[in-house]
């Protein structure tokens, strides 16, 4: 009698381990968690006003672009996109310039009250947006900065700086002192040290800080609404009305998709770039 033997998996083929199974499960859950709401938003944005999507219909009985047409007809979204994408890069650049010295000091030096200062930097993120907006607006009015593009750039810079500062400070902090010492021992002066060591090492942090500041600017509503409108309208000041008290699902779906797209694109770019840079930093490409 010959014993039956199960064929052994060919060498080199991956076996389904618990780790792979859990990773796949997590990926599927994540996809459902993010994908289903996105799919629902797309479907609601395409509902035909004449043929409502109601129970028990699983899908809209008819699709139409009427809801998109409505939002683009009755809002100043085109002008708002241009304004938002003018302010965000300027605010990001200014936040970087203003944050750099403080971030370097926080990352590379020890001094009394450093941890308290780090916490204080986060205050603008913790406090309610409208409270900050109301108090800042008075200062902006007195300085003649309300209803001006420079005022808006400055406001967005102030609100984006906590992100830029904390991330840049962490990036500076993470640079091993050995590397700096080694560069100096090899004769590098300050310009070479900055160009060959500091900049490449903080670049991923700078990029992450820039992405966060950029997105914070794109999504800032309260301060812009108080000091910027009616002269300037940005994407959130035009679109948040559709998501508030008189929330209408179809309009809100269109608006959510419009708000989501720039953030998703930027995050994908950031993810790709950050990975490469971190790897190069970690494995000594420097």
């Amino acid at each position, binding site marked *: 009698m010959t014993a039956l033997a199960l064929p052994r998996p060919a060498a080199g083929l991956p076996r389904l381990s618990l780790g792979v199974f859990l990773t796949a499960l997590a990926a599927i859950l994540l996809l459902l968690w993010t994908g289903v709401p996105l799919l629902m938003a797309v479907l609601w944005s395409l509902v035909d006003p004449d043929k409502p999507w109601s*129970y028990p219909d699983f899908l809209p009985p008819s699709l139409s672009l009427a809801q998109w047409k409505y939002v683009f*007809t*009755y809002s100043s979204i085109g002008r708002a996109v241009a304004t938002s994408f003018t302010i965000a890069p300027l605010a990001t650049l200014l936040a970087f310039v203003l944050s750099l010295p403080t971030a370097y000091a926080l990352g590379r030096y020890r001094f009394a009250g450093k941890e308290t200062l780090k916490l204080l930097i986060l205050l603008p993120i913790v406090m309610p947006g409208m409270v900050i*907006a109301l108090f800042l*607006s008075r200062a902006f009015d*007195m300085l003649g900065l309300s209803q001006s593009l420079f005022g808006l750039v400055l406001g967005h810079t102030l609100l984006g700086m906590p992100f830029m500062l904390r991330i840049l400070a962490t990036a500076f902090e993470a640079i091993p002192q050995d590397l700096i010492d080694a560069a100096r021992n090899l004769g590098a002066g300050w310009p070479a040290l900055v160009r060959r060591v500091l900049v490449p090492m903080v670049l991923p942090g700078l990029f992450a800080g820039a992405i966060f500041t950029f997105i914070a600017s794109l999504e800032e509503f*309260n301060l812009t609404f108080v000091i910027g409108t009616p002269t300037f309208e940005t994407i959130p000041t*035009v679109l948040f009305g559709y998501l508030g008290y008189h929330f*209408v*699902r179809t309009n809100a779906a269109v608006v959510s998709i419009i708000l989501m797209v720039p953030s998703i694109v930027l995050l994908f770019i950031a993810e790709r770039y950050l990975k490469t840079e971190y790897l190069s930093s970690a494995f000594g490409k420097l």
Partner: protein
Amino acid sequence: MQRRTFLIAAVTALSIGGPVLAADADYLSMPWDKVVEAAKGQSGVTFYTWWGEEFWRDAGKDFEARYGIPVRVIVGDRAANIGKVVAESSQAQGTIDVLHVGGVEVKSLLDAKALYGPLKGIIPDSDKLDPKLFAIQEGFAHKGYLVPVYRNQVGILYDPQKVPNPPQSWAEFTAWLDANPGQFAFNDPSKGGSGQAFVQTVLLNILGNPEKYAGDTEMDKAKVADWGQVWSWLNANESKFTITASNNDSIDRVNQGEVAMAAAWDDDTSIALAKGTLFKRAKLYIPSMGLPGGGDTLGIPANAPNKAAALLFISYLTEAETQKKLNAVLGSYLARTDVAGESALLPEEQRQKNGVAWLPGPYKKYYIEQFVSQVLQQ
């Protein structure tokens, strides 16, 4: 040193606050034709609202075509609009000319002394606008500073396939609720007026005697001493209700088939029908147990830069033809009492017979707070 002095001055000025108003022509005592003339010399009208953009933008274009005065419509967030007016109230000149005002915001605006007026008697045809709304908005007396622009009413929205004969009286309603637990929805009253309307209806049907609150500008504690009965009844029956997150969430639950009936505003229902977010067979009615209704208004900030143009724009919005268009586009009922709207979901007879007034503001505020603490948080 100079920088430090400047910072101290800045902080001191911030803490002083208070309105600083610029000298303005006295449009409130001017003949109307002079106001119109002055309006034509002003740069435009900036109007802040929070919904209904399709109507306001078209009305703005029509106004510009007639008078040559451009209208800029900003559709913002309801609370943020008021935040902006209050934030700008210390400036000599603000940026808003006309403000669309909901009932919740009336007190904040009056407390901040942020309004120009009174406008009653100044706007032509003031006598043809709903006199109650011209004096009191959702329980808050505004003394004619706010001009009615439309009326709206809370009713009960229902699916006639599930509820062929909807209940009318309080006894019929509670019997229906017992037989259909979970099939009636109303929103958390701190999140929208239709939920507030339903809680008030429960309160008045259990306790009766609505007249005792009339005219009070402060809450009389003796008059609310028996309200505990209402919270006890609601707690005992909470499982029979579906409590939702907002006015439109209630409508959505009806559309999704989750509930058969819900408290809903007439204009929200009209918009949902027009947008395809509610099935066309849905119906709305005001039961004989009564539900409150009111309306929204327009105001002019005390530091509005173009007050004459603002007065003219408000006058235009309250003209008979403009009001009919508003009714057709938004579904809200006309603020004028001398013209009928053709697009009303609720017949005028039902409004007059079963619509009731809101309790005065302090009582309304109190029952909203009490519902949250005594029912939702229990």
